[in-house]
């Protein structure tokens, strides 16, 4: 799709026009000077010309702006960083088969929402039979033994249960992101596992949630991060690849590639 060096621009109504829409609030009263300030910010974002098409006072100290204009940046398609799936997408059938063949035992998967987060719909979408987007959840896979620990789970609790269940993989969901709660909790979690397990024996750590950046696995100390719109099949396929295809137990770093998908 994108041959090396190929660049594109945003599209308003003509190829290459580079048009974008922006809105933001500045903590200043609504004056002509404030509109100039909005234009300055737009300019710093690379918008030129920038049209401040709307400015509205919100109380005495804040002003809301809508800006339209042409952004002068180029999108370099061959420099796009995304976390690739470097393994096949398996059907439940294929996944079960691979596990039975490769492992001769069921995989134990433990999952839940840690910290004060009570948003279980996401993890349930991955784990429960009901599933998500038409795909059955992991509980549906004969060769997966799924333990769903639910919400507002403390990290120590999670670690203990993982040990009891002799978990091959631990799936954690974090939906609340205010004050980076999701990052803080995830780091605490991965640290706790490294502490509780002998090096190299740590179960596969997977974290997910709508506001995660999938390329952050390294930073967070987990093996893989899943974000918005993940489907159970994607998770199952990854589990098989990481725990069966590659040496079981081995911690796999996410392959973050440059370039074409």
């Amino acid at each position, binding site marked *: 799709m994108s041959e090396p060096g190929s660049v594109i621009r945003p599209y*308003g109504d*003509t190829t290459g026009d580079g*048009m974008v829409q922006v809105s933001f609030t500045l903590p200043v009263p609504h004056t002509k000077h404030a509109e100039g300030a909005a234009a300055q910010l737009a300019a710093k974002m690379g918008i030129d010309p920038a049209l401040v098409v709307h*400015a*509205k006072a919100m109380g005495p100290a804040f002003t809301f702006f809508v800006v339209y204009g042409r952004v002068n940046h180029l999108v370099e398609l061959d420099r796009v960083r995304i976390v690739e799936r470097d393994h096949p997408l398996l059907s439940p059938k294929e996944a079960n088969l691979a596990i039975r063949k490769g492992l001769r035992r069921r995989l134990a998967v433990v999952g839940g929402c840690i910290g004060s987060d009570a948003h279980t719909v996401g993890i349930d979408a991955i784990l429960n039979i009901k599933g998500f987007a038409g795909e059955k959840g992991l509980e549906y896979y004969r060769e997966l033994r799924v333990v769903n620990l639910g919400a507002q789970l403390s990290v120590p609790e999670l670690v203990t249960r993982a040990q009891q269940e002799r978990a091959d993989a631990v799936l954690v969901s974090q939906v609340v992101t205010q004050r980076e709660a999701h990052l803080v909790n995830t780091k605490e979690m991965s640290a706790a596992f490294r502490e509780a397990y002998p090096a190299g024996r740590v179960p596969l750590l997977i974290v997910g949630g709508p506001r995660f950046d999938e390329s952050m696995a390294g930073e967070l100390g987990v093996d893989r991060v899943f974000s918005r719109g993940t489907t159970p099949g994607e998770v199952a396929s990854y589990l098989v690849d990481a725990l069966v295809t590659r040496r079981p137990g081995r911690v796999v770093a996410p392959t973050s590639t440059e370039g074409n998908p």
Partner: protein
Amino acid sequence: MSTRSTTHRNRPALDLDPVAVRKARTLARRAGRPIVRLAQQHTTVSVERATLRLAGLSGADAEGTPWVNRLVDAVRGDTGIEHGVCLPVWHALAGGAAGDLGELAAKAAVGSVRFTLPQGRAAVRARSAATKAVTAGLKRIDSRRCERERLVRKWGDAPRTPWIYLIVATGDIYEDMPQAQAAARAGADVIAVIRSTGQSLLDFVPEGATREGFAGTYATQENFRLMRAALDQTSAQLGRYVRLTNYASGLCMPEIATLAGLERLDMMLNDSMYGILFRDINPVRTFVDQRFSRQVHARAGIIINTGEDNYLTTADAVDAAHTVTVSQLLNEFFAKEAGLADWQLGLGHAFEINPDVEDSFRLELAHALLARQLFPDAPLKWMPPTRHMTGDVFRGYLLDGFFNLVGAMTGQGILLVGMMTEAVVTPWLSDRDLALQNVRYVMNACGNLHEDFRPTPDGFISTRARQVLAESIELLEAILRHERGLLDAIADGTFGLMKRPADGGRGLDGVARRADDYCNPASELLEAGSE
């Protein structure tokens, strides 16, 4: 539009006095009659050029001046146009001045032909030759109309009403085409290609495919052909005939109407007074051109869209609500007189009440229902908020949603989709996609709300509708009180607050009072269609 005319029948009825309704129509007829007579007594350069186009003359010279202009100007120089150009032109051909119209125009352009008015048998011969040529043109239009009907049967029609009407306006026909196809795929039933600003003031129709319009794309025969072909391709894929709209209004109404018929456009913006009020085109010129162009539309099976929305962009939508109704009544009269059927009357109105006005939404409902009920069999064209749209695109998106809701609740026939960037730019691809999503939500979620919508006979909505109707009657009476009726009313700023005297405005010099021996086979053949 058969589907539609049934759908709206079960719409909540306002309690209107049938006598008042009849009275309003009668007054409109009385105001319109003299204008029709005026139109019958005059011709214009554009009417004559349209006639030559029907007779098969097309193309332009090196400077891009169309041959029809060259030829008509030459004839005008020699004999004037008051007799019509047909007699002099076919007389010249008969005299061997040239092998065909194209060659004749070329010679005329360099002044190597002189035109004279044939008499007696020569005149008879010229007239019948001209009639033969023009008839061929009308036949082409007839066959395009049959073709449309065939394709609608073959591919299927719009799934429901209102028809979803989307605008493209890049200025470049080659950007317009993919955008129009994308819009059609996304759900548009009708695509309108906005014209480049100011084309309505050109006294000729540009030639060929064009790529450099301002805020719109030039209306040319080739652009019509290209876009219609692009939409045919998409229609076939979608199994749904997607209609194409352009603009007739302006100094070339008769010609553009003719080209639309020849290229199977499906709708045309054609208002009896828009050119006068919003483009300062001479009233007589406009009325003459307007009548001829509507006769052509009638023949071509094209649905016209009138421009009442424009009034509300300069006048207040509450105070001037009745001017919209009066204009609709006049447009209806002129249209029917020109031979258009009810299903061809896309009478315009718009959601332009200041959203900060208390009960504004219910006022919009009242106005929309009034139009719906006054013209039960016309595919009303419901147009979105524009002047009260601002740079606050979120608010704009919301307003468009409530505009869509009125459309759904009042059984409008054609819904011009509003764009959240109305106050900012000509629509972006994404604006159109978001706008269609908005329409889809409202139609799908609230499409049947009209079943539960029952304005009480003397409630706010019915009362408002009756008031607007009453004011319309007063206004029509006021118009008739003027010495020269409508012409004077237009002169003193009755519509859209613009004053347009009958002897002012652009294009007056292109008007001529028909001589007794005026001959125009096109007019004659088209009159057949008229009332």
